[in-house]
Every structure is written in structure tokens, then in C-alpha cells.
């Protein structure tokens, strides 16, 4: 006599789907959203998991990366940059810079572990979030000699969920890079 319940095959399928959904949900995703206006209006929304980018970066030809040398001047300032970032990470939340003109407002604030830059101009609005600890970790582990695509992904992994960059121009063009 057949018992009531889920048969084995659908159960496997269900478990696989559930596992896939969980794995996808646990990955860090980045969504690049671009909207333009006018006759050739375009709307692109490209979501992709960071792990895909990391894998793609791993296949970059070694010689291509090797030739991208970092200027010596940058290396000379390594300790200063790291020290400044450590100070930023440890300091209390505050508005660091505020510049207000009749047609522009620029505000740089430190909030939790993020450095936030907000620009409200007549012709554009910009919001940018920089994860301080993520940048610090990435730069500490970097050799400061060769370009390392992994740096970008280290920073992105450390970014909080939400808008990383958002630009809105007065002509209707919008660009957003969102983490989730």
C-alpha cells in the first residue's frame, strides 16, 4: 500500500531547488542599473554574483596584469594611506566636510563603517558609499606593485547592502550600482 507524502524524486528536486535558492541568496550580488532618456533611451539592469566576476578575473592573462604596474609614488604613500584609513575606521561618526554654494552641496560623512559622499548639484545628484574596513583590508593585503582585480572584489564583498553608487543627471540619466 502506497503511503501518503512526497515521493522521492520530487523531494530531491525540491531539495536541489531549495539548496540552489539558498546558495544564490547567500552570495553577494551586484546590480548595475543604467537608464538613459531620449530617442535612444536604454534601460539596462545587470545583476551578477561577485563570485562570477572573481572567477572571470582569475582567468585574466598573467602578462596583461603584470604590465599594469602601480606608480612608485603610490607605493611611497602606502603607510600614510593605511594609517589614514585606520584613523577613519576608528574615529566616531561625523560630518567631515560640508561645502555649500548657491548651486551645489557637497557633504562627506563617516557613518558606521562607511564613508559617504553626497553631491547635490543643479545638474546632477551623486551618492557614493565607501566601505572603509573593506578598502583597508584590501589595501593591507595588496602588494602595491601590480594591479590586482581581486582588490575590487574584496572591497565589494565588504560593502553593505544597498546603493554603492547612484548618479542621477538632470537629463534623466540614472546610473546605480547596488549591492545585495
Amino acid at each position, binding site marked *: 500500500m502506497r503511503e501518503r507524502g512526497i515521493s522521492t524524486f520530487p523531494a530531491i528536486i525540491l531539495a536541489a531547488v531549495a539548496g540552489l535558492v539558498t546558495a544564490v541568496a547567500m552570495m553577494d550580488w551586484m546590480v548595475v542599473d543604467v537608464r538613459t532618456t531620449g530617442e535612444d533611451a536604454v534601460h539596462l539592469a545587470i545583476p551578477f554574483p561577485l563570485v562570477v566576476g572573481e572567477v572571470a578575473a582569475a582567468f585574466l592573462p598573467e602578462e596583461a596584469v603584470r604590465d599594469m604596474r602601480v606608480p612608485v609614488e603610490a607605493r611611497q604613500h602606502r603607510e600614510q594611506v593605511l594609517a589614514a584609513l585606520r*584613523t577613519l575606521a576608528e574615529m566616531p561618526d561625523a560630518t567631515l566636510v560640508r561645502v555649500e554654494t548657491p548651486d551645489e552641496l557637497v557633504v562627506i560623512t563617516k557613518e558606521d563603517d562607511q564613508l559617504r559622499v553626497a553631491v547635490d548639484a543643479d545638474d546632477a545628484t551623486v551618492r557614493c558609499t565607501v566601505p572603509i574596513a573593506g578598502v583597508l583590508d584590501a589595501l593591507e593585503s595588496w602588494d602595491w606593485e601590480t594591479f590586482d582585480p581581486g582588490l575590487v572584489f574584496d572591497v565589494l564583498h565588504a560593502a553593505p547592502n544597498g546603493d554603492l553608487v547612484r548618479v542621477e543627471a538632470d537629463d534623466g540619466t540614472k546610473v546605480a550600482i547596488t549591492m545585495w
Partner: protein
Amino acid sequence: MRNRTLVVVAALMLVAGVASAQTSGRWININVDEVSTGTKVEVHLPFDLVLNVLDGVDVDHFHSGHVDLGTDVDVDWPKVLGAVKDAPDGEYVKVQGPEEDVQVMKKAGTLFIHVTGKGEDKEIVDVQVPASVISSFTVDADNRIDVKALMQSLADLPSGDLVRVTSSDANVRVWIE
């Protein structure tokens, strides 16, 4: 104009000096309110942060932690600064002119510069230079102030205003807390 230059140089030296102090948890604050253009600038930075980036700043008249005075005037800075540091309290300069009144005095070791403009701007300038700042001034043969030298002596600088400029055109305040 000369007074304004003097104030700017003094403010630069003070800010650089204050920023150099090993004063963890203390902040340098700068407010500029330019009435004529409607521009307001507020900067609030922890000393530690400024200290860390000081050596990396490479702009006009400021390289590798040195402020270039950019003048060909032959001044014996050690002698001048030593004389100012060792001078007793009192009123050193008092000028009352048709364009402005200038007063330079020393009180409890702190040098006070007060300028009252009588022109259209009606500017009032107040600059305070604590004794520890005076002592830490060193100017090399190339007329550059060694900001690192200032680091050693400014840690105990008390909180308060360093520069305050008020005029019909702009208001500037530099203070620490």
C-alpha cells in the same frame, strides 16, 4: 592686503601645527562663510587623520610636510622667533591708520594679533599664537617651515579659537576642540 597675507600664513602655520599635534581624539575645525558668493565651507577633521596624510600632501607651497613661505625677503627666522618667544608680555605693536588698526600683543605667553579694518569690508581679524607654537617654529634655509617640528610641541595646545576673521565679505573661524 599685507595683513590678509599675514593672517593666511599665520592660519596656515597654525592649522599645520595644530594638525601635527599628537592629540588623539581632538579635532581641527574650519568654517568659512563667504557672504558675497553664498559659499559655506565646514571642515571637521580629527588631528590623527590630518597627521597621517600631512606627509602625502603635495600642492603649491606645501610639500612633504613643509610649508614654503615663498618669499625672497631675507629674514633671520630663528632670531625673530627666538626674540618673540623670549619677549615679555606686553603690547608690541599698535598702529592706528586710516585703513586699519593693528595691535600685536603678548599675554601669558600667547601672541595675539588683532586687526580692525576700516574699509568697505570692515574686517576684524583675531589670531592667537600660543607660546608652544612659537617655540616649535623652525624655518630652514629654503624658507620652509618644518611642520614635523611643530608636532613635538603642540600636543598640549588648549582648545579654543586660533583664527577668527569677520567681515562683510566673509567670515572665517579656525578652532580646535
